[in-house]
């Protein structure tokens, strides 16, 4: 594979006496789907927070597309092409599905200090928004207020918003969280279709999804990466570790 799009080195986040991430180092290759797995409390969501910029790191550095982004705020990282979804769906609930995605399109289309022209009839926003909705399978739900969408559809919409910003790296925090088997399969298919086109770093508990999608997997325990390898190797390694540690998954 080529050169890494994101490199994190020695990331640490301390909450009082607890080291949520403890010297975590990661390399994400361009084009891969990279999954982080680990038991509850391993610091997966904390790590995503540090990478996206919601949490400041106590130690360590993050390079993204060759740039040091360690001290950049969330919105600057986002405008560099770092998009994310949240563990608990985070969308604009009183906006229609199309308005949600149009907002994401607007985010990548320069600044929004434009006070006069209507954004509701702006083809530059609406046309690409409908395209992205189609891509995630929500084309016929465009005019529905997000609040009225099912949980699975809301997750799809959140993914659509992230995709609409044309990210260089997509951070997905448990994309299958709270989904039934049917919507889970749909989401896996969706992500699979993105494979190769978009670099994805995902945290996920659903092992089927992880082993189906991931090119590489990092196992996180107590804030440290104890292994990074292909799914096959991790799976074999897994049994060994489980035997020794007896605690994971």
């Amino acid at each position, binding site marked *: 594979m080529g050169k890494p799009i994101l490199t994190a080195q020695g990331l640490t986040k301390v909450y009082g006496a607890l080291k949520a991430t403890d010297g975590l180092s990661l390399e994400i290759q361009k084009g891969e789907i990279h999954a982080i797995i680990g038991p509850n409390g391993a610091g997966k969501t904390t790590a995503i927070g540090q990478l996206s910029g919601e949490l400041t790191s106590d130690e360590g550095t993050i390079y993204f597309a060759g740039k040091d982004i360690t001290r950049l705020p969330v*919105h600057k990282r986002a405008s560099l092409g770092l998009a994310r979804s949240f563990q608990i769906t985070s969308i604009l609930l009183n906006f229609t599905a199309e308005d949600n995605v149009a907002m994401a399109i607007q985010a990548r289309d320069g600044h929004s200090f*434009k006070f*006069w*022209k209507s954004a509701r009839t702006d083809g530059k926003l609406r046309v690409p928004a409908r395209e992205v909705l189609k891509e995630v399978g929500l084309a016929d739900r465009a005019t529905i207020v997000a609040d009225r969408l099912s949980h699975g559809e809301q997750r799809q919409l959140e993914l659509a918003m992230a995709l609409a910003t044309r990210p260089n790296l997509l951070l997905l925090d448990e994309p299958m969280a709270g989904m039934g088997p049917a919507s889970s399969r749909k989401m896996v298919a969706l992500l699979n279709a993105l494979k190769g086109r978009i670099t994805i770093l995902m945290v996920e508990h659903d092992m089927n999804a992880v082993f189906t999608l991931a090119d590489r997997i990092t196992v996180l325990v107590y804030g440290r990466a104890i292994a990074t390898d292909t799914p096959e190797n991790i799976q074999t390694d897994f049994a060994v570790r489980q035997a020794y540690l007896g605690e994971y998954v």
Partner: protein
Amino acid sequence: MNRFQPTLKACILVAALVFLIGLPPIASALEADFYIGLFSRILIYALAAVSLDLILGYGGMVSFGHAAFFGAGAYVVGIFAFHGAEGSAVFSWPFMIMGTDNALVSWIVATITSAGLAFVIGAISLRTRGVYFIMITLAFAQMMFFFFTSLELYGGDDGLSLFTRNRIGHLSLSNDTVFYYTCLGLLIGFLFFSWRLVNSRFGMVIRGCKENERRMGALGFPTYRYKLTCFIIAGAGAGLSGALMANQTEFVSPSLLHWTVSGNILVMVVLGGVGTLVGPVFGATTLLLLEEFLSRYTEHWMLFLGPILIFVVLFARRGLYGSLVERIGDDG
């Protein structure tokens, strides 16, 4: 449904517009000129309420200090008029500005001053959230209240009388009808501007921040800057409204900056419909008419206003106008 509701809305708007345009000649014909003054006051407060709703209803910023901008705008007009009558300068450093009764100067300066004040207050207040934001905006407004109370040159807590109303070029606003139409024109202008604003890209960002600021940040919007800009626009609107108020009463005093004024403007917005543009106009009309007529019967008119407000909040959450044209995600 979609065909019916805009029609209902259009009917309400046209009826209101016809009423407001026709009011002065009818009031004069019926020898009830008093209503021209009353409705001028309503239009002025409506302007302030619409500006508050930009940050409150669309931006989700519950400011309890809108009187600061309202009062500052009024004082600018008062101070300019004071120096204009005296023939002296308002200030002479770094450059000299003479006092004047020309609206084109003093109203614009009033608007800019309030915008500048909103920049300072907003820049600090917007670093807080929720109840802290309410308290800090209130605290700033109180600071302004005591600041103007201590301005001995301009009457301290007694306030300052204007020698006469401003003029626009050669057009004197001393005529109540002329002044009324000036207020109406400015209100409609500001409503139109706000309508474009809330549906523009900027407006969508502001609404998005109200809905889910975290998501907006994650999409790449520097939310603080957008909210601050909105806060400044609202402050400017309130400043203009204050400039009109000084002309309406031909008197400015710290009471314009009292926290109850902020409260009243807030009540107008809630009464009429948070997050609608025309709602605050209805709210201002309702509140001031109730005040006018209830206070003829009793000085404890607030006692009756209270239950009405509770009723509206309980049973018409989107306010009087908002409930009438109920539609989620309305464009105003």
